[in-house]
């Protein structure tokens, strides 16, 4: 069994692990969705401002999930590790 096979197998597992980061954004953005829904019910007049703030905050919360996705895609599609094999 070749060195390449070992590195590529580990890359598949690493890609899967990296996606787990997405748990955070899911929880946090869902919290924001709930507070946003509550807030527009209380102050319908401020709807625009509430939704914009919710979305801005949620965009910030998305970043680490994106980092995980980017690392996974690098491992799967542009694997830099193979080139380092002797």
């Amino acid at each position: 069994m070749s060195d390449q096979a070992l590195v590529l197998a580990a890359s598949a597992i690493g890609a899967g692990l990296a996606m787990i980061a997405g748990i955070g954004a899911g929880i946090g953005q869902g919290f924001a969705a709930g507070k946003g829904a509550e807030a527009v019910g209380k102050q319908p007049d401020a709807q625009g401002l509430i939704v914009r703030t919710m979305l801005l905050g949620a965009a910030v919360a998305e970043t680490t999930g994106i980092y995980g996705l980017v690392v996974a895609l690098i491992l799967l599609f542009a694997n830099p590790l193979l080139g380092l094999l002797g």
Partner: protein
Amino acid sequence: MESLVNIITFMLEWLQQFSATALVLAASAIAAGLAMIAGIGPGVGQGFAAGKGAEAVGDYKENNNNITFVMLLGAAVAETSGIFSLVVALIVLYANPLVGVEGTGIVLAASVLGAGLAMIAGVGPGIGQGYAAGKGTERVGQRPKYQGLVVKVMLLGQAVGQTTGIYALVVALILLFANPLLNLL
């Protein structure tokens, strides 16, 4: 497989068919994935801040600017451990200092894995600092007059909450760049 009499010996011998470089690179792929798990923290924390921000702008429209500023400032601090982890992941993928180092492959590979595991500690500061960001945001919406004080205490508390993430980064960097285990071989 009839020769498989001892599961541990079998696994260690199986690993030894690979070059030391292959072991390190395989460990690097897994370590990069492990390090990214820290991203759970900022996601939860910043989402909390987002929710408190949305609530606060609804209740105190006039303080919208203060609220958004504190939410984004607090969330920026909460991003730290996600950035640390991304940097460690990129180091092991693109500039792994243990590739080509003299030493037993299994120790080098395990050191890379240990670095990835250590970074998971970043989950904590991410959640905690995001919570602080949310509470600071809420209070600044209610009492914009005390924004300076609230932000000062928020940042002080966030700094205290960062330490265990720093410890983890230091241990990961030691494993990658100044590995004392290699001298013990």
